[in-house]
């Protein structure tokens, strides 16, 4: 299982990405998050604590999901990026598009 989705008591959906987010599994992530959005979820945290690498199509799906969630009045936050992943988001300037927290707990704290 590449992804885990859990909803906390306040309704924030935490999405864990295990291993990698790449061309081969991005559609699964997209569908699962869209299903949660359809089911009423509006606040999402993607937890990359257990993620090794993300390719460009993985970045693309995050941008797409963020847009769809915003259109529904929600927000997608990122958390748990290691140093290399943090650099990836800075190089692609995606750190300006997403709220990025150091840990999922920090992302949830003021959500």
């Amino acid at each position, binding site marked *: 299982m590449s992804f885990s989705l859990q909803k906390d008591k306040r309704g924030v959906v935490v999405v864990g990405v295990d291993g990698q987010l790449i061309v081969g599994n991005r559609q699964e992530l997209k569908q699962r998050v869209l299903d949660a959005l359809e089911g009423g979820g509006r606040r999402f945290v993607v937890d990359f604590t257990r993620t090794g690498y993300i390719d*460009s199509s993985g970045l693309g799906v995050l941008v797409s999901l963020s847009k769809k969630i915003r259109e529904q009045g929600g927000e997608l936050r990122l958390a748990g990026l290691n140093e290399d992943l943090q650099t990836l988001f800075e190089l692609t300037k995606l750190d*300006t598009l997403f709220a990025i927290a150091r840990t999922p707990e920090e992302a949830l704290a003021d959500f």
Partner: protein
Amino acid sequence: VSTQRLDLRRRAADRAVELSLDVPSALEYVGPAVELIASSCTSGVLSPRRVAFNLRTALAEALTNAIAYGNRQNPDRVVRVRVEETATAVRVHVVDEGSGFDPSRIPDPPAARKPGPGERPRLVRAAPPRGRRGLQ
């Protein structure tokens, strides 16, 4: 995806190791192929961190491009990956069976203008210029 169709070949030659892998032209093979190759790069020339992130990311991007844009996901075509591990470097060749292109005619976006959000610096260079495409 079944990895039965992925057969990694390993050959040792004069202080170098060469890994070879033929990857079917389907995007679901990208992840398993990357894992198979990266977990077999054990010479130590790249640190575990570089193998975990840099090598895997570069391989995934090159394989995706070769499968999607080189072979057009044609099941009759394969992408051939060859990895040379020497004492000082790891060189990766990713070769598709597409019609190729002239890289000198492709503008380099970061050189032409400041990249916007979501765009990334060019990570791999295409060679040779004609026929099949290799990525280093």
